[in-house]
């Protein structure tokens, strides 16, 4: 049975901009268009796309924070926007950018508060807390106020918090953002383990393809509000050539280049890069022509500056 069902969901926003002294023009921005997908119980799905593609909007609709403009959603048997509080009991959410814990409380107190908020049975709570403390190495951190935790420590604390009430579904919004290589790797091990042992369905957004590679058997790509790919990571790699060509037109021929002429720009490897989707042709980019008097102080970037 699908634990997440999304059918033809649209979400548009009216954005008001100033256009003139007092007049304001409003434009409708489609954050998500005609989005449909379903996730089976126990799946671990990567949800990727450039900034502003609609990932967070989707997650906000799946948690019931945002109401969709059109279409239908179903998560763990609930309609998110209509049954927000009941659904909250069944899901866990981690926003990588900010904590859902209480800033001034030691982790232990935050967890105890969550136990009461979610009405977690005492023995189940103890069991879960022991497991997570052990697996995430939280032992020495339990008595530290959240504000004193490092980013990596806080993330571990947040993830344990999202799982304490045995949710069916967990949304992880950029859980590895800002973490060092070792922390990332440990976190991934934990997530894989949790998914396998507990059968938690995980929807994970990230900009780090290694997360997807190590964790997810399935990846969904969203771009400009539309789902443009849904399948395996291999399929995604097969689809696009993972190399980019940057064509630079110089305003005038560089007399004597101090730079290596053929250098690969950006990333090309599987590990760190963003695979490009099929493009009709390499895009051409011309630098805006700058007045020649500008910036003898920073000759390092501009092709027009005289060196």
């Amino acid at each position, binding site marked *: 049975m699908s634990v997440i069902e999304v059918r033809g969901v649209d979400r548009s*926003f*009216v954005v008001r901009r100033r256009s003139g002294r007092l007049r304001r023009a409003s434009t409708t921005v489609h954050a998500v268009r005609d989005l449909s997908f379903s996730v089976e119980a126990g799946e671990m799905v990567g949800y990727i796309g450039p900034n502003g593609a609609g990932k967070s*909007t989707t997650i*906000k609709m799946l*948690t*019931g*924070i*945002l*109401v969709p*403009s059109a279409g239908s959603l179903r998560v763990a048997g609930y309609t998110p*926007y209509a049954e*927000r*509080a*009941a659904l*909250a*009991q069944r*899901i866990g*959410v981690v*926003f990588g950018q*900010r904590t*859902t814990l*209480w800033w*001034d*409380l030691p982790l232990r*107190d935050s967890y105890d*508060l969550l136990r*009461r*908020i*979610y009405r977690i049975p005492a023995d189940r709570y103890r069991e879960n807390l022991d497991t997570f403390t052990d697996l995430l190495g939280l032992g020495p951190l339990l008595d530290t106020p959240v504000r004193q935790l490092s980013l990596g420590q806080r993330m571990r604390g947040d993830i344990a918090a999202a799982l304490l009430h045995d949710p069916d579904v967990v949304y992880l919004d950029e859980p590895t953002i800002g973490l060092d290589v070792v922390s990332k790797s440990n976190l991934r091990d934990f997530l894989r383990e949790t998914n396998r042992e507990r059968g938690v369905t995980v929807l994970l957004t990230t900009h780090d393809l290694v997360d997807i590679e190590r964790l997810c058997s399935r990846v969904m790509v969203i771009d400009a509000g539309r789902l443009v790919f849904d399948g395996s990571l291999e399929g995604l790699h097969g689809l696009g050539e993972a190399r980019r060509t940057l064509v630079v037109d110089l305003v005038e021929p560089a007399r004597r280049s101090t730079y290596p002429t053929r250098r690969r720009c950006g990333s090309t490897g599987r590990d760190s890069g963003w695979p490009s989707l099929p493009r009709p042709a390499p895009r051409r980019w011309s630098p805006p022509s700058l007045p020649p008097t500008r910036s003898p102080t920073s000759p390092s970037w501009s092709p027009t500056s005289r060196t």
Partner: protein
Amino acid sequence: MVDRVAANVSAYALLAWMWIRVSLSYRTSFALLTAGQFLITGLDFVAILVMFSNVDVLGGFSLTEIAFLYGGSALCLGFADLLLGNIERLGQRIRLGTVDQMLVRPLSLFVQVCADEFALRRLGRITQGGLVFAWSIYALDLDWTAARVAMVPYLLVFGTVIFLAIFTIGAAVQFWTAESSELANAFTYGGSTLAQFPMTIYPVEAIKALTFIVPIAFVNWYPSLFILDKPDPLHLPTAAQFAAPVAAALLTVAAAGIWRTGVRRYRSTGS
């Protein structure tokens, strides 16, 4: 319905208790902040005392009578401020995105916003208002009939509800205008300051506005007219002196409506 109210009250108590424990873990700072609130709010009353060293009567009211008005207004505002004073930070929360974090919890958003950073130091204002109120009751030369005695808790309860509703409306407006907490403060803290003085010193238009538009006069003015046996400058029917529950109920309904509309708007715009 009853279940839901009980669940919300217990959720509020749970969150408030957590914040009390947090604030008590910084004992010195808690003591200083409470004492600070006591002194700052006390200065209002010192100003009134200074005024009365020059005059004997203000707007037909003696010092003890004004102390009664002052204490009633300060206590009602104090209780409301204690219970949901932090709701005014809603705009800030919307900007920082912490409202989203509250919406992923299985609790009412209103309860969470009200209880967030519950500050026991606000007892400073209540203590100060309470002392002035108690002194005025002791010093007033009144025949304390049963009706007058009963009117005192009546004043405090409905006055508090009126301020609670005004706080809520002021906060809910921030769903549309992110930074307008000062506007709300003008009505709550400003309103309470107006209500500390007899309405007789204000122009009739102002009294009308405080009766029919922002009904702060029902917090303590109309009940006090009854208790202190004073004439009503607007010559409203005597029933007005007992109409605080009506004003409180109307405001509460309006507050609930505006709050719900605001939440719906937030959830359909996400900003």
